[in-house]
Every structure is written in C-alpha cells, then in structure tokens.
C-alpha cells in the first residue's frame, strides 16, 4: 500500500472514532451501554458512506463494505432459511422428537412421508460439492424446472396472454352519439370524447404494431416492416415514459438515506 493511502485510511478511521465518541456522548438510553449505542449508529453511517464513496472511485472502504456485505448476507439468509423453512415447515411434518427439540407444534398426518422427498432431493443437490457424484444434483434441478415449467405454462397462458389480449378489446368510438355530436362537441380537453377515442386507437394500434415487431420468422419488409417500425416507436415511448416515471421513486430512496445521515447520525435536523 502506498503511504498516501495509509494516511487517508488513518484519517478516516480517526474521524470515525471521533464520531463514535461524540455520538456516544449524546446517546441517552436505558437499555444498553452508551458506547454500544454510539458504535451502532456510527458504524451504520460509516457503511453508508463507504458504499457512497464508490461513486467517486473504487477504494478500500468500499471493498471492506462490499466484502462484509457478501459474508453477512449469505449467512443471514442461510439462518433465516433454516429457521423459517426447515424448522418452521419441514420439521413439524417429519419428526416428533425434532419438533419437541425446536419447540414447534408437531403436525402429524397420514401422508407425511412425502415430505422426505424434498429432503432427499436437497441432499442430492449438495452432492454438487463432490466431484464424482455431482450428476445427482440434476434430479432436484429437474424437479425444480418441471415444477416451474408446469406452473408457468398455465399461469402465463391465463394472465399474461389471455387476459392481456381480452384487455385490448376496447371500443374504438367511446360514447359515440353520431358525427354531428362529435363535431359540435369537439375539443382537446383532457376529459373530452376526442381524447378518449384517440387513446383507445393508440392502445389498439400500439399493441398490434408492438406484436408485429416481435415476429421472428418473417422478414420485416413492406407494410409489415412499416408496422414493425411503428411498433418499435411505441416501445420507445413506453421505455422513455417508464423511465421518467420511476425517477421520483428513486430520488425518495436517496432522501431516506440522507435523512438517516443528517438526523440519526449527525443530529443536524430533527
């Protein structure tokens, strides 16, 4: 490591300890030692800043936060999975003595032996860690793939395909009361008839052209090509609009983080 790096790290660590002391001094709590309370908030703030420092460039603080994150998160989800699924759902169905050990209510039933299947499949999956028995891991994989394929097949057919198609069944002439009425009441008001009619035309033609863009086995030429062009324009409007719409939510995330720094850590605002 270069000297400047070491100096920079020392300075940051010094500031961190200073913040810890200051934070602890202002920490009022009955339940725990003030030094621990101060450490928790300061450490959270340190991690927050370490991640943000990545925006400038890669640095040892980011590396530290990144590596810590990887280790802690892997273990956290492992232990959560163990307690909620293995102990919570599986143990009560397969063993009375284990249920007593973990203090979960035993659920006897006549078909409980089937719950050994996922355990066996799970153990086969762990065979992956061995070099010679690795192929056994394909069985649970086949089970998982078969399950999702079977469920997806009907679910998508129903909700993403049939329901989306029938949602396109909209009348092209909303509130149609004749040409005379249409002309005499013509306006570009957001709640007017004309705008509503245009909206339905746009939805209909947009969906058709969009689908045409996704034709793979036909060359996009002539009228077909023109429709596919319009299709890609509609998709571009979709992407642009969705992008613009999400900005507000993303900014809120940052507002939350900065509020944490200013309020919980620095105490600048209340």
């Amino acid at each position: 490591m270069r000297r400047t790096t070491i100096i920079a790290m020392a300075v940051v660590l010094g500031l961190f300890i200073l913040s810890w002391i200051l934070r602890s001094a202002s920490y009022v709590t009955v339940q725990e030692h003030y030094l621990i309370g101060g450490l928790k908030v300061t450490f959270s703030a340190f991690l927050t800043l370490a991640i943000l420092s990545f925006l400038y460039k890669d640095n040892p603080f980011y590396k530290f936060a990144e590596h810590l994150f990887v280790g802690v998160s892997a273990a956290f989800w492992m232990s959560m999975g163990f307690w909620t699924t293995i102990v919570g759902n599986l143990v009560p169905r397969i063993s009375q003595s284990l249920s007593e050990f973990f203090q979960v209510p035993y659920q006897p039933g006549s078909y409980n032996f089937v719950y050994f299947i996922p355990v066996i499949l799970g153990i086969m999956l762990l065979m992956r860690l061995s070099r010679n028995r690795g192929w056994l891991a394909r069985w649970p994989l086949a089970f998982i793939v078969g399950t999702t394929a079977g469920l997806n097949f009907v679910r998508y057919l129903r909700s993403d395909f049939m329901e989306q198609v029938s949602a396109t069944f909209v009348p092209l002439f909303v509130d149609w009361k004749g040409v005379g009425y249409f002309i005499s009441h013509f306006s570009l008001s957001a709640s007017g008839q004309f705008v509503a009619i245009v909206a339905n035309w746009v939805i209909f033609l947009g969906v058709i052209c969009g689908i045409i863009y996704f034709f793979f086995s036909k060359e996009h030429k002539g009228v077909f090509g023109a429709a596919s062009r319009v299709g890609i324009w509609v998709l571009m409007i979709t992407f642009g609009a969705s992008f613009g719409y999400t900005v507000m939510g993303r900014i809120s995330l940052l507002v939350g983080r900065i509020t944490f720094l200013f309020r919980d850590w620095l105490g600048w605002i209340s």
Partner: protein
Amino acid sequence: MKRQIPLIITFLIGTILIFSFFIPPMEKLEQTSTLFFDVIAVFAFFLGGGNLLRVHFNKLRRRKRDWGFSTVTLIGFFVTLAAGLFKIANPGGIAASPTTEGALLQEIFTYVLIPLQSTMYALLAFFVASASYRAFRAKNREATILLVAAFVILLGRTPFGMMLTGWMPDSLSVLQVPNLAIWVMNSPNLAGQRAIMIGIGLGVISMSLRLILGIERTYLGEEGA
C-alpha cells in the same frame, strides 16, 4: 441414464401440474410442490454457503489480489451464521423468532445489512441521473422518441410543467404537460407494456412446453460432465 431420469422427472412433474390447474381434486399439489421447492431452496443456500467458503478460502490460500478482504467476508459470514443458528442473545430462546428485537441477528440486520442494502439501492438515484445525461441524446429517431417521452413525464412531475403550459384553456387541456404525462402513461405506455407482455407470455409458454417435452435441455449441462 444420467440424463434420462432428470428428463422423465421434468416431464412427469410438469404434466401433473398442468393438469392440476384444471382438475380441482389435484389443487393441493400446487401448494405441496411449492413447499418442496422452498425446502430445496434452503439446501441451495447451504450449497451457496459451501461455495462461498471455497471461493474465499482459495483466495486466502493462493494470496490472490485483495485476499485480505476475504478475511472480512469470512469473519462476517461466521459471526452472522453463529448468531443466526444458535440464536445468540435472543431474549426468547429457541422458540422465538430468529429476528426478535434484541437478538444479535436482528442487531446485525438493523445496523449492518439495512444501511448496506438501502445505500446500494439509493445509488439508483445517482445512476438514474447519469444514465439520463449520457443516454437521452437525440441521436436517431428512436432515441429522440425515447428522450421526448421521458422529458414529458419528468416535466409533468415538477411544478414547472404547469407553469409553462398552465395558460392553455380547458378545451386544449390535454396539451398541458401534467395531463399529457398522464395520457402518455395511460395510452401508448400501456400499449407498449401489453405488447411486450403478450410476447413474453408466449415465449414463456413455448419454452415451458419445450422443457416439459424435453426438447430444451441446456439446463442439464452436457453429457459426462
């Protein structure tokens, strides 16, 4: 043998589940298979944990670049795992939820995982800005459409949209930026989303069918491996 049995398993499970959608007495199968799925997923977590240890111990042993940081990963991993599996400092003991208030696992979650997770997520605010700066350029017709749509929506979400176009009379009110933004979200945006969803729906259906029939078998890897 090594490939045939998995293909048969996929075929059987897939077909049974398709039928269970139409046959009420088989409906419970769906729940059961979901539970199986969850249990296998937990074993996958353990597989993941094993792999993580292998990757980082390898780095340590071979003194690869940044090997020092691998110790951070390993310490974080073992401390959290111990806190979670043995429910260290959990006021409710073994019967309580692993994330009871006061438990070490819960403290780690609140003061380590949450700041890390939410700050990573908050990076999006910056990246949304840099991506718009870099990518919203009127390079060609498609890019221009993308740019204009995004700009209209952005403008409609600020007070300035109304300030610029608020003078328009009600008979032209769809052209006021906030209304235009709503119109774009409700019509062309909806059409585009729907076209993509129908396409994806068909793709998923077709791929699922290929998987069940054993036509698509990349997921099994190669023979002999």
